[in-house]
């Protein structure tokens, strides 16, 4: 009996998922599919490719796509598929960590500025505005020039670029939520400021933050790729999409296929992050509905 019930439950769950999936448009499904692929790349890259990204084969240099090497090989005979996957993993991890760090620092700053106002607001927001007055790539170059290229510095650099963006957004949301009746009610009930900030205000400012985070990851991936392409980010022999494109440029004549795979992965990832951000905005932001 219980087996039948649980089978029935599973059936319903399966049907529910199928119904929900059917209600999504084709483009949303494609975006979600690409996100699934990226998640697999991060969590279990060995499932997607058998060849290690650093195994060299001098006799198989710069080969075109074939059955053994789906996307061909690079200048050391390493499999491009495998380098695109493991390189993408590095790019994604750097972008995700940077955006997470930026949110962890920017959101409290913005919350404090919006909630307390006055000199706290002025002090926090003015310093953030000075950071915003720099083009992101330029600021990254300045920091990398000072502290040297390394994965950790890359994460810190991109995070610093994004802190003011999160702070500014969060300040705006807090200013809006602060005047709502439920916040006044919490005040009237004697809830301490910390409780109000954590339990009442923060949960109500999450939607714009999630949207901002999604869109920021897209730009963070582009910044990482750009810096690595210019030789200011991840250094060879480690791979990221930017590093691969830099090397591919040297072999444009000999191996034109080399430039395609990393670029297509980069492009589709940024595109799907942007589309996901738009989709989330349509769902989460009541003003956009």
């Amino acid at each position: 009996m219980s087996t039948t019930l649980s089978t029935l439950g599973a059936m319903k769950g399966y049907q529910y998922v199928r119904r929900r999936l059917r209600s999504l448009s084709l483009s949303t499904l494609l975006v979600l599919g690409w996100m699934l692929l990226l998640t697999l790349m991060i969590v279990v890259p060995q499932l997607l490719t058998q060849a290690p990204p650093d195994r060299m084969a001098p006799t198989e240099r710069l080969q075109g796509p074939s059955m053994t090497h789906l996307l061909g090989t690079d200048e050391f005979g390493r499999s491009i598929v495998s380098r695109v996957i493991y390189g993408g993993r590095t790019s994604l991890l750097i972008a995700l960590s940077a955006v997470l760090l930026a949110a962890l620092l920017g959101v409290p700053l913005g919350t404090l500025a919006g909630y307390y106002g006055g000199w706290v607001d002025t002090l926090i927001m003015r310093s953030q505005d000075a950071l915003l007055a720099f083009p992101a790539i330029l600021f990254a170059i300045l920091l990398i020039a000072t502290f040297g290229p390394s994965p950790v510095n890359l994460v810190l650099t991109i995070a610093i670029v994004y802190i003011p963006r999160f702070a500014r957004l969060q300040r705006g949301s807090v200013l809006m939520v602060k005047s709502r009746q439920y916040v006044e009610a919490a005040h009237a009930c004697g809830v301490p400021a910390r409780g109000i900030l954590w339990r009442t205000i923060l949960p109500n400012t999450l939607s714009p933050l999630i949207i901002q985070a999604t869109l920021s990851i897209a730009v963070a991936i582009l910044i990482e790729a750009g810096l690595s392409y210019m030789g200011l980010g991840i250094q060879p022999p480690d791979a990221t999409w930017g590093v691969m494109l830099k090397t591919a440029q040297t072999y444009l004549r000999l191996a034109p296929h080399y430039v395609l795979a990393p670029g297509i992965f980069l492009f589709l990832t940024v595109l799907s992050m942007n589309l996901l951000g738009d989709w989330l905005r349509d769902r989460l932001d009541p003003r956009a509905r």
Partner: protein
Amino acid sequence: MLPLILRRVVEAVITILLLSMLVFSMLLAAPGDPAVSLLGRAAARPENQELLERMRREMGLDQPVYIQYTRWIARVLQGDLGNSNRNGQAVVGLIASRLPATLQLLAFSTILSLLIAVPLAVMAAQRRGSWLDRLLVLASVAGVAIPGFWLGLLLILLFSVNLGWLPPSGYTPFFADPLDNLQRSVMPVITLSVYLVATFTRFLRADLIEVLRQDYVRTARAKGLAERMVVWRHAMKNALPSLWTIVGIEVGTLLGGVIIVEQVFGWSGIGWLAVQAVNNRDYPLVLGVVLVIAAGFALITLVTDLGYTWLNPELRHQ
């Protein structure tokens, strides 16, 4: 309007001052002692320690930080950004010699993008929901997401490697050989313009759709004005201030993008100079370029703000 302008100017000056402090603090945080790097290998010899001390004193490195900053900013304001570590040339001179190349790319791509984006946005807004509109929306979503340097590589692959029509990289000053200069600028300009066209089209289309719904547009149509007049004379006038702002913001963003694109095409502008400087550990040059680009960014923001105030009659008559 005057107080508003003054306030914007003061804000821009404060921003540039804050930026200069940030750049200066990087100068302090940078690894290595400037006196040692000036003296080179000789600095390691024990008999040179006294000389090293004297040089530090002469360079003011023994002074408190705020005095060092004041001296530095005073020199910067007089147009002295120091000398390159690498070859001893004045940083200002190096930047000035590379600036025209970068400004050329910025100007060409902004003008080209506007020439393409404005008619496209008008067409899309007028035929909202048509296949043309949908195609343009799709193209602009893709155009924003395509990484500039990858697009650049694809252009080189097509036009230089496969077709052999254009030189793959390099820069010739316009006055040295105008034809060669223009030929070499084609691919960098296209690369930068794709993103701009996509962004401008997207914003202007959305804005025009909003404006074309307004009552005064209906009135203009009702009195029998030709659709061309309605769009270009009446609707465009109201869409102009926000287009101006987007152009300002994006040209600022372009200052970052141009650094990478110059790298792709070996176009020796100031972005190219900056990356060379980082690779050579030429710190004064890095800071000089960063300061110049950041000041340029602040200036563009200021001009955008002032232009917006002037274009918007409500603000103009305040």
